[in-house]
């Protein structure tokens, strides 16, 4: 017996392909738009960047010279700016991620149960997520102006003289972190609300019957059950924080004194202001590696959590 099945078509002729082969062909046909798009718009550019990272290519000269790992050496071992930028990115991530997650969880706990007006509040906190990043940054830039800015006017009412937020090195990073948190917290809030709503109510009720306080229910039941969601949220927020560009571009331009110059913005500067496409590609590959490591950590932790 062979496992090939001859299918008689409407016209009476037999197909020479097995049923499995025909199904495979159909499947590929259906996924081909996505696969082709993936190759052209993702895999292709990624390979191109990988290649350019090994070249010295000034955009104005239109000539790419193969230099091996020289750009990597330059970035990792010789250029002090690179480590300053990495440090800024890490500070940005360390400031943004815990603040964003804590705020998102607090909002989610308050807004996960139905009450009158809950949809309104969820919408209010989610709206900045779908607002244009540039528009958001412009508005905050005005609000954070040293003189006449809305924030300082409010502070003045209670007798505090606010700094020039985006022009002072000590305050600029804090200002961009907080405004970015306010913009993106709604997304994590929604993820946490979904995770909270997926926890069966019975657990809480059983714990209440057994005498657990609200605090105990949260620490002993809710928080451990949110662990998978927390992991995902933590990693995507960290990755997002490493990729931040538009916000920095519009609010500080990396300043003052390179105090908010983060990796993604530094890549942009190298590639499109100084036209060092080869070096910018190297930096992009390093950033890709960082993001990849973070993603692998997420996958590993999730697997461990599921065991």
């Amino acid at each position: 017996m062979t496992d090939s099945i001859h299918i008689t078509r409407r016209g009476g002729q037999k197909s020479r392909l097995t049923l499995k082969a025909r199904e495979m062909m159909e499947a590929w046909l259906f996924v081909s738009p996505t696969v082709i798009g993936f190759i052209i718009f993702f895999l292709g550019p990624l390979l191109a960047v990988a290649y350019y990272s090994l070249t010295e290519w000034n955009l104005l000269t239109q000539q790419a010279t193969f230099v091996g790992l020289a750009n990597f050496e330059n970035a990792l071992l010789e250029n002090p700016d690179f480590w300053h930028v990495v440090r800024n990115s890490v500070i940005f991530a360390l400031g943004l991620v815990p603040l964003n997650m804590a705020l998102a969880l607090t909002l989610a706990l308050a807004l996960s149960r139905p009450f009158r007006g809950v949809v309104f509040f969820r919408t209010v906190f989610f709206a900045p997520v779908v607002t244009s990043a540039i528009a958001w940054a412009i508005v905050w830039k005005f609000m954070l102006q040293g003189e006449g800015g809305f924030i300082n006017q409010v502070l003045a009412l209670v007798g505090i003289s606010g700094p020039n937020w985006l022009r002072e090195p000590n305050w600029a990073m804090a200002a961009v972190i907080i405004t970015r948190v306010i913009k993106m917290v709604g997304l994590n809030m929604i993820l946490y609300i979904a995770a909270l709503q997926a926890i069966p109510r019975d657990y809480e009720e059983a714990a209440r019957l057994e005498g657990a306080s609200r605090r105990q229910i949260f620490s002993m039941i809710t928080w451990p059950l949110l662990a998978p969601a927390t992991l995902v949220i933590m990693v995507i927020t960290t990755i997002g924080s490493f990729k931040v560009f538009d916000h920095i571009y519009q609010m500080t331009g990396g300043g003052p004194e390179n105090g908010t110059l983060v990796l993604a913005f530094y890549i942009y500067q190298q590639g499109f202001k100084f036209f060092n496409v080869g070096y910018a590609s190297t930096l992009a590959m390093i950033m890709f590696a960082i993001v990849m490591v973070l993603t692998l950590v997420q996958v590993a932790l999730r697997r461990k959590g599921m065991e």
Partner: protein
Amino acid sequence: MTSVLLKGIEKRFGSVEVIRGVDLSIDEGEFVVFVGPSGCGKSTLLRLISGLEHISDGELKIGDRVVNEVQPSQRGVAMVFQSYALYPHLTVKENMGFGLKVRKVPAQERQRRVNEAAATLKLEPLLDRYPRELSGGQRQRVAIGRAIVGNPDVFLFDEPLSNLDAELRVHMRSEIAALHKRLSTTMIYVTHDQIEAMTLADKIVVLRDGRIEQVGSPRELYERPSNVFVAQFIGSPKMNILPAADAPLLCAGLAAPQSAETLGIRPEHLTVVEPRDGVLRGTVSLCEYTGAVTLLHVLLPDNRICLVLHDEGEVPAVGGEIGLSAEASNIHFFDGQAQAIRALPH
């Protein structure tokens, strides 16, 4: 052992009235089953007793205390949930000891009580497993074990067997009955399965639309239903309801009481006889063979279907005419309000 007393209990969710004035007395050590169709309020009533829902009106006493305003954990009740509600990130041992831990019971004492409950329910080999590593029946036993550890005055069961397959359900039913016998604790059990209700209960409470239709022992409910609803809800297949005028046809010489509008006769109380004049006659429209008995669907002249459990003799052929008769003592009469007429004329 503790009694439970419900006086005029009402529950409203907004403008929707779910429990409409329930009065009920549950004696110490009694096994009471709330039964009724979906949406009748049986689970809500259980949740009101547990304290997971607030009582809108009325008074609830557990033991000598009015507990309307008492926290669920202070009422001395433990509940076994339909979903078991075992914490998935804790082992069986941790699940069972959870209540003791949050109440700051010392670890040694906690261990002793968990081990004791585990021994009662034969859970010792499972103590270090997670809920996901247990079968449905084992999870059920852990849920019961968790309830036992707290040493409650009253056990509350919310449809605890509904997620199990038929065979396991029968097994767990007997385990719960044995547990009640051993602990002699007051137990309140919610189910929509009347077999569970009949086999477990000392007392059955039949609910409909947030009201109690009848309270009584399983035998009382079966033999002396107080209205058509209870008569048809208890017993399977359900009781046939026929015009009261059919009484003399079913049982020669039997006259329906004057106020009777309908009569009820259970399928197992009908006997197939020759279709002669003076008996209730009908045509067999369907025979359902179930092994021990055959369920006959008999089409009566007024186009009603009458169910008959036929367990001896030759099974009548489909399409054939048969006669039906019954003993007077098995015939129930109901008035125009579908209430039972108690003074039976036999």
